[in-house]
């Protein structure tokens, strides 16, 4: 299965989500240095570029994708396109990593996607300290679902 974590930039919350998925980040409280050390974190410019992030223990390939403001249209198009080739939802999973985040974190990533990478990333990191657990919890639910599909 291909799992694509997508967000505004594909280099902030999507990278953190991929890090959580791969076990690089744990459920414990995280500090900024851990996030900054993640490969591809806050790296410009990743918009609309699919980046391979690694493979999990189940053999699922992980990717990150920056979709700008098109958080609804892009995944819808991907699913619709793949359905033309009879590729089902069990072969790909698209996870919106912006969904569990609060407004300040979103704003940070949005600023980064709008070209204010340094300022946006600082704001994002500041707000992420608070939202990290929510993202972790959200992904835990999603990953369990992905694993279920894998073992069928």
């Amino acid at each position: 299965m291909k799992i694509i974590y997508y967000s505004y930039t594909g280099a902030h919350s999507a990278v953190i989500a991929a890090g959580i998925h791969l076990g690089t980040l744990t459920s414990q409280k995280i500090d900024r240095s851990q996030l900054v050390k993640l490969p591809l974190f806050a790296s410009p410019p990743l918009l609309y570029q699919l980046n391979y992030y690694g493979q999990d223990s189940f053999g699922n390939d992980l990717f990150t994708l920056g979709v700008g403001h098109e958080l609804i249209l892009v995944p819808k198009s991907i699913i619709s396109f793949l359905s033309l080739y009879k590729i089902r939802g069990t072969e790909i999973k698209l996870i919106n990593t912006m969904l569990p985040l609060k407004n300040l974190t979103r704003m940070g990533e949005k600023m980064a996607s709008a070209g204010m990478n340094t300022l946006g990333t600082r704001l994002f990191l500041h707000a992420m300290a608070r939202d990290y657990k929510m993202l972790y919890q959200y992904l835990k639910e999603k990953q369990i679902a992905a694993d279920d599909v894998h073992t069928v």
Partner: protein
Amino acid sequence: MTAAAVHLGMLPSTRRPNCRELLNTPYFDQQIAKDHGLFRLMGCDESNREVYIVGKHNLGKNFEKIIRQIAGLFALDQKEFVIIDTMPYVNFTMMVGGYTSRRLGITFIGRPIVTFGTQKAFLTLASMVNRVKHTLTSCGQEHDC
């Protein structure tokens, strides 16, 4: 949608269609926000190629970039599909009419404007479609050889 209709022969390719012809075309000024991003089958052309329409907002060339990357992930044949961006052929009148009709919901004002704009842009749009069809046909012949 107009380009797809020309491709499929639902609209003439050598003259401007009248209002009735445009309005009778499937999906003309019908798409709503939730339809955007969905590949919708318009029909099959004379060479049995499937023709789809899809709304892509302001993604421009990035739409194709994303789709091609996804196709690459699943090792789909990149030559099996062609994505044609029709936005360069959309004039200001069409944008204003489309926005008024679809986004603002003022169909009785927006629809005549978008129809007028489409008629104005029609011949360039149709010639683009003819070019695409010609290219596809010649590529297909080379492929057969």
